Structures are given as C-alpha cells and as structure tokens.
C-alpha cells in the first residue's frame, strides 16, 4: 500500500521534464494527479476549483511567482508545499511555515515534505 494512496494532488511546474519526474514520483507514492499545469493563470483556476488534498507549487512559473496560487490554497485550507531552485530565500515571510522542496530532490524528500504539509493541515 503506497503511503499516500488516493491523495489527490495538483502539480504546478513550468518545466515539462521536471513535471514528468514529479508526476511519476507521486504515482509511485500512490497519489492521484488531478492536474499538472505550467502557467500561473491555469494554476489559479485549478487551485480555485479543483478538488484536491495537496498541491506542489513551483515558485517560478515562466518568470511569474506562484504565490497568488498559494494564497488561494491557503484560503481554501488546502495543504501545499513549494518546490524551488531558489532555496528558502525565494519564499516570502507569509509562507515561511510551509514545506519547501529544493530541486533537484529525491522521492524520499518529496514524501517527507508531503508528510509535513499534510500534518501541518491536520494540526490546524
């Protein structure tokens, strides 16, 4: 039984190759990919409407920041984590408490951050 069987995930990642990697890792973990989007506009739409348990947000989307999507998710009470090549400094203070994945990352790191994110939700 995969650790996150049935967990519905939204992937926001602007580079196709990386998105493929994340998707495969998530599938390995038993997750269901509800949507995998590359652009901010579509990401906002999905974040606002999709029925999901978790979102993985790439910070930089073709030069745009993903934080408007994070706000929507926070407001909806949906857990999320950031994936970034910038390191923690790329995340503003208001989202400082959210887990951050530093690219490149391993499947075990993803699992750990997802666990944190979901626990974070459970505790709030």
């Amino acid at each position, binding site marked *: 039984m995969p650790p996150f069987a049935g967990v519905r995930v939204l992937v926001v990642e602007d*580079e*196709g*190759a990386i998105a*493929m*990697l994340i998707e*495969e890792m998530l599938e390995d973990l038993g997750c269901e990919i509800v949507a*995998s989007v*590359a652009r901010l506009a579509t990401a906002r739409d999905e974040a606002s409407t999709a029925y999901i348990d978790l979102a993985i947000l790439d910070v930089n989307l073709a030069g745009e920041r993903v934080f408007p999507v994070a706000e929507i998710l926070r407001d909806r009470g949906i857990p999320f984590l950031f994936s970034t*090549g910038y390191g923690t400094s790329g995340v503003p203070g208001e989202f400082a408490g959210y887990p951050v994945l530093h690219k*490149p990352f391993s499947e075990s790191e993803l699992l750990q951050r997802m666990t944190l994110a979901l626990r974070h939700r459970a505790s709030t």
Partner: protein
Amino acid sequence: MSNVEELPRETLAPSEYESLVSIGENALEAIPGAVYLCDREGWLVRYNSEAAELWGRRPELGVNGDRFCGSHRLFLTDGTPLAFADSPTASALSTGVVTRNQEILIQRPDGSRFVALMNIRALRDRRGVIQGAINCFQDISAQHAMAEELRRKSADLEDFFENSAVGLHIVSGEGIILRAHKAELALLGYSEEEYIGRPITEFHVDEPVIGDILNKLGSGDCLENYPARLRAKDGSIKYVSITSNGRFEDGKLFNTRCFTIDVTCVHAAEAARQESDDRLSATYEAATIGIAEADVDGRLLRVNDALCHMLGRTREQLLAMTFLDYTHPDSVEQDATLYARQVAGEMDSYVLRKRALKLDGEIVYLDIHSSSVRDASGEFRYGVRVLQDVTLAQRMENQVRESERHMRNVLEALPAAVYTTDAEGRITFYNRAAVELSGRTPQLGDLWCVTWKLFNTDGSPLPHDQCPMAVALKENRAIRGAEAIAQRPDGTRVPFNPYPTPLHDADGNLVGAINMLVDITERKQAENRQKTLIDELNHRVKNTLATVQSLAAQTARNAEDAKDGDRRFEARLLALSRAHDLLTKRHWENTPLDALAKEVLMPVFGLEPDRITVEGATIDVGTRVALNFTMTLNELAINALKYGSMSVETGTLSVSWDLQPQPNGTLLTLDWREQGGPPVARPEREGLGSRLMKRCIERDLGGQFDMTFAPEGVCCRFSFLIGA
C-alpha cells in the same frame, strides 16, 4: 581892552563916573568897541551902538530899565545860564573886583550867540566909593571858534600820531630819529630814550636797505610799502613795510615821515605758506601714487610724475587731455557719470576701479579716489584724483578669480554632488549634482548638509548635526567609509557615500569643509542585480539538474536496454547542453530561431545540405521557448536518425516554419517533414520522446502538437505563440 583905564584920572572933579556920564553918547560912540555904563545900582545908564549891535537889542536905560547887562541872556562858556545879578558886572559893583578878559556867552533875542570877551571895572569916587561900573566887551566868537578848531585838530593829530596802529617816526635830514610814536616803540620794544635821537640806521638789519631808503627819499622819491627788516630790542627781527616821503624846505631834505607797518606775521604766514606750497609740491611730485587735478570737464590741470609714469604718457600729453581720454571704453561711462555727479555736488567723492590705456595700448588697472575742492560758497573749483596702479593686484585677483571659477566649474562638472560649508557648517556652495541628489535646491546658509532628510543604512533617522559632515567639522578630520541614505522631498531615497574633508587656511585654521556625496544607487542596484543573477543562476542550475534527473530517470525507465538508454540519455543531455550553449552565447537573451534549429540538427545529422532544408522567417525567441524548442527538435531528430528518413542515405528532411501575427503575439507554425526513409509504421505505444515533446509544446508553451506517422515519412506540425 585897556582903553578904559587910560581915561584921565587926575581930574579931581568930577569923578570918573560923573565924567563918563557927562561926556555924552557921541563920545562913547568914538570908542572902538562895545561899551556900556551902569550906575551904582547896576541900572544901565549909557551904551554905544556897537554894544547894541552885539546885543541885538537896544536896552532900557535908567531905573527899572536893564540892569547889569544889556544883553538878552547870559551863559558861562560851558553853557551854564548866568543870571544878570551874578554877572561879572554885578560882581564889580558889589565887590569892586576887576574883570579881565573874561569870556561870557551872550544870547541875542533872535537866539544867536556869541562869545564876548569882557573887561569890567568898578568906577569909584574920590573917596573910593563905588559909583558905577564900565564894561567893554567884544565879540571873539571867530577867534574862539578858530582856536577851538586848532585845538581839536591838534588833539586829533596827536591822537592819530600817538595811537595809530601804524608805526610812525620822523627822521631828520641827517638820519636822526626825531620823533616816534607809541605804536612804533611798542613794535620794537624800545623806550623813547632808547630810540629817539638815535640814527635810524642803527635799527635797520640790512644796511643797503636803509641806505637805499634814505637815498630814495633824499632824491625826492616816495616809498610805497618798501620791505625792510628792523631789529627789535629783544633781538628779534621785525619784517616791516615802509611808506615814506621826504619833507623839503628850501630844496633841502628837512625830514622824512615814515609809516612802518609790521608785516612780520604776514611775512611769517607767507613764508609758512610758501614752505607749505613747496612741501605740497614736493610731496605731489615725490608721491608714488598718481595725483591729478581736473576741471569741471575732467580736463587735467595738473599731474604728477607718478601718474605720467603710470600711464606711459608725458605731462604735456596728459595736460592736453581729459582723464576720460585715456580711460578704457568699458569704464568711460561709469567714470564720467560719477565725476559729473561729484562736480554737481550730489556726492563728495567716489572710489572706482577702472581700466585705462597707456600710450602703447597696454591696459592698466587703476584705483581712482576722486574728490572735489570747493570754494567757500561750495562752488566746485577743481577735482582731485588720486590714482593707484593696481594692475598687478588686479591680475592676481583675476587669476585667483579665474582659478576659483575654474575650481567651481570643475566642482560643478563633477558627476558627484559637491558642496562646501564655512567653519560653522553653513553651506557656501553646492553644484548641480548636489541639487539632483538631494532633490531640492539647498539655501546658502543651510547647516551641515544639502540633503532634505538623512537616514542611517539601517533605516534609522540621522539628524543633520550628527551627519558625517558635521562630525568632520566638529572634530576637524576627514571622514571616510561612511554610508548614509538621503531622502528627497518627493520621498525617493538615495544611498550615498559621503567624503567630508575639512578645509584649512595657510595657517592651518579650520575655515570650512568640502563634502562629496557619491550616489551609490547604481552600485546598490548592481549588487541587487548580481544577487538576483546568482539566484537566477542557482535556480537554473537546480532546475537543469532536476531536468537531467528527470531525463535520466525517464530514459532509463523507457529504454530498450541499458545501451539504448545510455545513448538516448546522452543525446538528450547533449541537446540540453547545446541549448544552454546557445543561450549562454546570447547571454540568456533572445535567440534567432533559425540559428537555434541548425544548432540542434547539425550535431545529430552532420553537415547534409543536400538532404536537409531549413527555412523560415527570421524571429527571435526567448529562453523558455528556445529550451522547449530545442528539446522538441532534438527528440524529432533522434527519432529521424534512428527510425526515420535520416536513417538511410536517400532520405530527406524539410524543416520550415511560418509566422502569423496574432493580437497577443506571433503564432509560429513549424512543419517537420521526413521523406525517402524506410516505410513508417505507427509505434505501438507512445514513447518517452513523444511525451516529452507534447509536454514541451502543449504543456510548457501552451501550443499544439500533432504528429502523423505517414508511410512515406513522419510529419510533425507544432505551433505555439511567441511573445505571449
């Protein structure tokens, strides 16, 4: 008059009185003079016509007629009224006193008066009893008046002689002083005894002078203000002016009358004036500054040597011109206007620095001090101009000014904000850059700094009196390495480095400070940019690594075998690397699409101009498009090489694209067409390459991707929006 006394007295009978009464009036008339007779009581009994004429009346004779005198009224000579009862005649009757030559004033009925000289005698009988009196009188008014006149004139003369302010002496023909009056004695300090009776030559200082005087007078000449020197008793020498003439009797010089006027004071004053003039003149000429006198029109009346030298012109040249003639044209109007106002009395004097021309055309700078000499009524007489050649000073001043101007220009031109203050921190200068940096125009006199508000680098307010410039001035040391932030009135902030440096005079005293504020906004921005760049680079590296990680994982998972996986991974990695090379060449900025296409295809196929055609309109694409385009084209190329038209030598490949303007960018449509390869069959399942390409075009670039496996060759068409 003695005629009465001479009457015969030896006749014993009748008595004198009786005889006189009896001789009758005719006898009295014979007497040459006025005569009258009174009886014992004083009643007039006889008078002659001359008496009546003098009285101006004819008195009543006998008892109850006129008594004592036949005149209208009597006065003493001093004008006191004299009653007839007190008259000499009355006295003669009462006391027998004889009156001789007494002068009595008689007034006639018509008011006229005359002085009468009276001789009165009592007439006695043989026993000596007074029987009457006889008065003989005569009018001596004329003599009296003459004597009075003489006396008065004499007194006047004496007074004039004695009290005249002018010295006066009389010298005999032999040169002996006969007489000298008080003023002359006082002048020389001698007593009469010491002076009068001495030869005049003794008192003259200059022998030839007195010789000449005496000669002239002896030959009948008059002396008029003849200058001479006399020796006073105290040894001092008196300068005198002598006016004299000789008095001749029988053609011989009898004496000389000399008026001596003491002109010692005048002489002294004259000498003093002369000396003063000489000295002034000498001073005038010896002065190293120019001095000139000018008339109303500025014509030069007098100039000294210094001025001639100063202007390189001769005295004659200068005296033939006005001071405006040698004035530089630029200074003429100012000097002329000022001088006219001075002449008109609107101003007493003025000072002016002007330029003047020497004869040789050289320009000199002169400081003019102009003033006026006026007469007692204030009327302008002439202008006095004192001139100083300040050419050297002016030249130095010009140099200093020029140097200062140069310095200011340099400071002004400096791209850094520069300002100066005095020792108290008051701003004395600032340049344009200072205005730009502070965002305001400082006021001269503002304290410490040109900026509006100051902050420390940590954002805390920095009061102006604690700013680095204030510290530099207060502690008299240069400050280096400081950094602060200036806020402009519009709210914008400028980070800057100040370089406050105290300024000292030649003696080392603090006289102010200069500060340079170097705007480090750009450096700060560059630092930020660099940080952003590093972040960006980090991001790309990390993303690229993640991409490589993904490619490796995907390739391995989808490979037919380890060797195939290895080869494919290598090809993908190299494609990715080439894309990065291209982007690096272009500094990660826009890249031309055709160059990109050739760069991807060349390494895969080699140089095959006959088999491969690449054509399309020129367009630049961004990094994101370039990366995805590269990856896509690479996947297509690898497939073509392994399974498609490029796997055999007869196959061809055509890559062409078309651009279509869209409202939100340019739509690129690319056709990949393989021909002449082995027959194509649709793969059983979608490979990693297809999935990657779709990801790149559809997902990442939001475009459309369509691939057909036609038997004659693979055709792929994809399109996406550039610049969206």
